[in-house]
């Protein structure tokens, strides 16, 4: 028995010595990401609803099978942060605030500028004007917008006075706070301006000069009834036209190409059969477009007063030129938000009611992938990488 044991140990030692040693790992290696991101990468806002002081934005590959494949990196966003990204430079912007004792103490508001490749904060602009504190709205991408070839960043302030704060990204400073008459949303308009929807069913527009000061104002007098059939403030912007769905299933086109917004056509997402079944648009983020300019709207059946935030069971696709539905895409699970990737092979990425992501071919509607394993996170809003 002893001989057998010694023979085994000798054999084991010979085997081990025959294998090459693993290379020594060097400490300090940090990954970076390719820029631009591939079309099939998305940025997903984990709003951290159960611990809002530190949310985050996750960079995900929607083709990934498990977490080591799909998770590419992340960056932080405090207290229901707002996010937007530049097209012409590798910058991403997070509007956030923090307290020096976590949920209490002195508050610091900041626009943090992240580098797309390293996901490191490369600059920040401190926002200390108390009347221009940002609105915290969980479900709006239009609380922050870039205009003027990405020179100015605008964000919506709610104190509860309503303002749009203007930041000059070249100077890295706040240059203006434009008061709004109880309006919200920032929809880029004309050469260097924006429009906002207002509580009385109107829309206001502003043009700015090179210093960010208001030079022109415009207004569309009240054109919809907020009580009877409100417009969602979450449109799809296709070219220079905003497509604003209404609670009941109409679409109001608004031309944003001029110095001031102007009304376009109004048409319906519904045919007679749809109305009979009471289909309505709804969800946390319910409208989007793709690189060919089709309009996608998330819909639910048996709608009623108060159902405008219900998850959608289908996404309907429309040709905005002919104003006709060209496709219905049933979802494997009802979804609360979605976006569509850019490029020649667009994909729909939904956040479903179980807080997982689903991926569909935007052309065929075929379900392609499920991205789960988010555990305690809230991957709520999906942003196509640009």
């Amino acid at each position, binding site marked *: 028995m002893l001989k057998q044991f010694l023979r085994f140990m000798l054999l084991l030692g010979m085997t081990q010595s025959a294998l090459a040693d693993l290379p020594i790992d060097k400490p300090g290696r940090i990954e970076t990401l390719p820029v631009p991101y591939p079309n099939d990468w998305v940025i997903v806002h984990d709003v951290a*609803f159960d611990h809002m002081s530190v949310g985050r934005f996750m960079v995900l590959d929607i083709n990934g099978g498990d977490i080591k494949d799909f998770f590419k990196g992340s960056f932080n966003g405090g207290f229901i942060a707002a996010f937007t990204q530049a097209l012409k430079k590798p910058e991403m912007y997070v509007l956030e605030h923090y307290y020096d004792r976590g949920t209490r103490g002195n508050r610091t508001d900041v626009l943090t500028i992240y580098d797309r490749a390293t996901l490191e904060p490369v600059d920040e602009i401190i926002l200390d004007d108390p009347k221009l504190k940002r609105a915290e709205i969980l479900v709006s991408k239009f609380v922050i917008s870039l205009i003027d070839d990405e020179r100015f960043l605008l964000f919506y302030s709610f*104190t509860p006075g309503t303002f749009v704060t203007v930041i000059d990204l070249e100077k890295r400073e706040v240059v203006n706070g434009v008061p709004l008459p109880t309006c919200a949303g920032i929809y880029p308009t004309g050469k260097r301006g924006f429009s906002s929807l207002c509580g009385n069913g109107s829309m206001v527009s502003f043009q700015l000069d090179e210093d960010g000061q208001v030079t022109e104002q415009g207004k569309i007098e009240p054109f919809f009834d907020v009580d009877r059939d409100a417009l969602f403030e979450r449109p799809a912007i296709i070219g220079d036209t905003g497509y604003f769905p209404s609670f009941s299933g109409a679409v109001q086109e608004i031309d944003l190409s001029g110095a001031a917004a102007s009304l376009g056509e109004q048409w319906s997402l519904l045919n007679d059969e749809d109305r009979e079944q009471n289909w309505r648009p709804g969800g946390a983020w319910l409208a989007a477009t793709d690189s060919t300019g089709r309009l996608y709207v998330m819909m639910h059946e048996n709608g009623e*007063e108060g159902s405008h935030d219900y998850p959608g069971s289908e996404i309907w696709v429309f040709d905005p030129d002919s104003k006709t539905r060209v496709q219905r895409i049933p979802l494997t699970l009802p979804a609360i938000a979605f976006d569509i990737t850019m490029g020649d092979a667009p994909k729909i990425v939904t956040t479903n009611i*179980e807080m997982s992501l689903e991926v569909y071919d935007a052309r065929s509607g075929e379900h392609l992938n499920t991205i789960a394993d988010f555990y305690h996170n809230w991957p709520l809003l999906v942003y196509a990488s640009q």
Partner: protein
Amino acid sequence: MNWLDNLTEKFSRNVARTSSRRGFLCGLGGVIAGGSIMPLLPVARAADAEQPGPPTVDPGDPATYEYWRNCAIDGYLCSCCGGTINSCPPGTEMSTITWIGTCKNPGDGKDYIISYNDCCGKTSCGNCFCNRNEGDRPTYRPHTSNDYNWCLGTESTAYHCTVNLILGVAIK
């Protein structure tokens, strides 16, 4: 039951009940009220208003989704967080600037104006999430929008839970 099971169960139940929901996207957060050019919203005086007291008939369990005063709520019910239907949990601060809803009391058939006051200063309660949107409107009409963080005018914008106070009977 783990968190995800809870979430799934919660949403499945709500889907079954209401054909589903957006869930989470509750009105939250907030900001210190700074100088404002806009008059305070109609319910900014909620803290000063003398509460009319509960209706003589007030059916239902305040800690449930179906309870009538919850018709436009969007957040965690303070009744499940150490508070009550009209009081905040210990150590939090009640926001005095709020959004409002109009809810029908099935007990007396009257429509009541409900002020939804957020309790603020601690991290999210996490219990009894409830989201109903009867009368809720988009963020361009703030005082009836539950998508904001209404921890406004409080020391901290950290959202914890929401109470619902009766402001009065709605006038037809």
